């Protein structure tokens, strides 16, 4: 059963592979893209070694210095989408002296979301503490055979995972961007016209609602010099630039209001259920929200069975959510990997539109906000605070910085997902491993601070041996299970 899922997943992967024809060995230069600036002609070779990931690019970008000065006005940049990525990008742009337009279709949108933010986001983005509804300090991992492991004992008193309401967080970031000088437009982005000449502006077509709900809206256009696409997983900006597709998971979630005494159990505890019944390649969860819990699950390979998985998740948590009333049902796509093209010309994608969601945990809010900020910083720097026109090279700097900073995180989580979400024995081993204090410390440190810190080598070796031992035991039990017929 799991091998079938595995095969199905890989067959889609191989067809994607064949149709996109990735060639890693020979990469052509980017000479053709740069028409106005002199550039060194070097062939780019990406090194394979993953631990120290350095892009050996001798391509020297001198774009910003020699591109024409923008006279009489500041550089105009439009940010499409007002979620965490859009809000963070707009704020950084506005603070950098750039004329910013933030286009958001629904200002009170309650985006369906897990809603978990790491501790570092509160510090890095100066979030006020009243935005956070709950601080999760304990987690329970439950294996297919109902072995339950508590993690979180290694957390220090000031460390927690923050649970937020998306409508509150998004509104706060947008308001902060507006205070910094960005123009927030309530409208739905329709399409954009590419520039005819090299320094001509983009023409964006959007339907302006101006705060009126249910109305037809007025079609308007806007001319800008650069665009940041922060409009989420079904990004229209990505479609406009032909960014390509990605595999995505469906996350299905039900918000359930349970009695107060049952709610005290989830006071600052979140649960994760793993198992083939709950999801073949992801996990089911019970996350506490402000006054109810969100029970959900997700999958990439078996999207049609999502309701069955949801029933199974509810069944496993039945005791703890018994008698609860479902108050809302929601679903959303989660990108599994970045789009093939994350930028084109003076258009860049950030957040979910670019596909910056980690594997294994499915975390996206922090990376969306951070990528928005990084892209905006690259624009501010490349345009020298709005005085010069920017080039694709300036946006490539953002991609470079992003890949260099967060590639290890993404890769480690990918490996974890491949090893531990593969089959029931692997999940049993995973839950067993989580009982280890060293594992808990490493996991939380890397999650809360977004740094993959190498620990004590002796402990690492012990951990490796324990992991292998767990996997071997679980697989041996699986072979025994295959021999038994109940």
């Amino acid at each position: 059963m799991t091998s079938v899922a595995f095969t199905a997943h890989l067959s889609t992967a191989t067809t994607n592979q064949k149709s996109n024809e990735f060639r890693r060995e020979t990469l052509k230069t980017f000479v053709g893209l740069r028409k106005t600036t002199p550039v060194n002609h070097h062939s780019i070779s990406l090194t394979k070694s993953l631990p120290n990931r350095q892009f050996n690019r001798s391509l020297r970008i001198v774009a910003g210095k020699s591109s024409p000065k923008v006279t009489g006005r500041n550089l105009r940049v439009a940010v499409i989408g007002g979620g965490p990525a859009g809000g963070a990008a707009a704020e950084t742009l506005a603070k950098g002296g750039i004329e910013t337009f933030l286009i958001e279709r629904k200002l009170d949108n309650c985006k369906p979301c897990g809603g978990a933010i790491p501790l570092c986001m509160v510090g890095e983005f100066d979030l006020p503490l009243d935005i956070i509804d709950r601080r999760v300090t304990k987690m329970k991992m439950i294996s297919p055979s109902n072995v339950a492991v508590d993690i979180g004992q290694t957390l220090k008193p000031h460390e927690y995972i923050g649970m937020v309401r998306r409508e509150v967080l998004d509104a706060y970031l947008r308001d902060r961007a507006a205070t910094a000088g960005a123009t927030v437009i309530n409208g739905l982005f329709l399409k954009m016209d590419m520039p005819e000449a090299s320094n001509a502006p983009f023409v964006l077509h959007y339907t302006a609602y101006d705060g009126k709900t249910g109305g037809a809206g007025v079609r308007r256009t806007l001319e800008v010099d650069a665009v940041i696409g922060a409009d989420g997983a079904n990004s229209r900006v990505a479609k406009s630039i032909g960014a390509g597709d990605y595999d995505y998971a469906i996350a299905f979630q039900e918000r359930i209001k349970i009695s107060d005494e049952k709610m005290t159990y989830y006071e600052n505890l979140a649960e994760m259920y793993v198992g083939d019944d709950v999801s073949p390649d992801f996990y089911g969860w019970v996350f506490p929200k402000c006054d109810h819990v969100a029970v959900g699950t997700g999958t990439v390979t078996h999207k049609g069975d999502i309701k069955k998985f949801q029933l199974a998740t509810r069944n496993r948590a039945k005791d703890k959510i018994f008698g609860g009333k479902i108050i809302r049902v929601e679903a959303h796509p989660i990108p599994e990997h970045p789009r093939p093209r994350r930028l084109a010309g003076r258009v860049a994608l950030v957040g979910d539109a670019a596909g910056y969601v980690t594997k294994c945990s499915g975390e996206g809010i922090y990376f969306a906000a951070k990528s928005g900020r990084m892209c905006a910083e690259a624009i501010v720097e490349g345009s020298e605070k709005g005085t010069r026109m920017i080039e694709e090279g300036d946006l490539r700097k953002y991609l470079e910085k992003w890949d260099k900073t967060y590639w290890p995180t993404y890769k480690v989580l990918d490996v974890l997902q491949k090893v531990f979400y593969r089959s029931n024995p692997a999940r049993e081993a995973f839950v067993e491993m989580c009982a280890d204090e060293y594992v808990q410390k490493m996991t939380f440190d890397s999650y809360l601070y977004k740094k993959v810190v190498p620990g004590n080598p002796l402990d690492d070796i012990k951990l490796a041996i324990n992991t292998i031992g767990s996997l071997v035991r679980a697989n041996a039990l699986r072979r025994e299970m295959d021999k038994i017929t109940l």
Partner: protein
Amino acid sequence: MASIAIPASLKIACSSHHVIKKQQSQAKPGCCFGAKQATHVVTVDVEGKRMLNIAEQQENASVHNKGPKGVEGESEHVMDTGSSVPKLFHDARWKNGTWDLNMFVKDGKMDWDGVIVAEARRRKFLEMHPQVSTNQAPVLFRSSIIPWWAWIMRSHLPEAELLNGRAAMVGFFAAYLVDALTGLDMVGQTGNFICKTGLFMIVLGIILFRRTKDLGNLQKLVDEATFYDKQWQASWQNPDASNGTSEQSQKDYYADADKECQECEMGNMGFYGN
């Protein structure tokens, strides 16, 4: 068909949820659902719960109907948990969330094989009939309690015997063939570098390819290990090469995505369509 009826009924429930949501979000209470909206919440919730029960029964019925052509192993277990009292795992030796090791003593010695088999039975049962995870009856058993030599004697040794047997047979015939072809006898072969390399490859092959499906599995493992890297590096490749093909695959992708969305009836549940 029953499976379409469920999403339809859930859609009605969901759209009414959405209406409620709009009113509440405009009110902007201190917490999600303010007191003055209580009446609305109550009526919708009751409906939601009824929908939930109906959905469960219909879901079971539809899964059972789909049994012949689709889900085979799953249909029985859903029927079991849905229709009557769910089957619980019972075993005389399973007490308080762990195996009572005193009951596994055979001839005065600890019977670890029995523990392994019992635990495998329990996991198999739970795989077929997933059970509620309760805090009152937590599972305390950890498989690490079984000593390492018990695993070796039960799982590793028989397979090791098999592999050694295969290696011996292949080795004997390989030695005979090489002797017949080149005239090198046993002592001569062990001194020859090519023969030693060949021997190493044979042993490696026997260890790696034990069943026919291992051939495909290993190839997939290699592909899988490098696929994520390729996806990330796609941004750094020549855009012209990927652009033409990506347009085509993009069209397919949106068509597939629409189809899947329709299949799981996600249209109303918060997807903003293109």
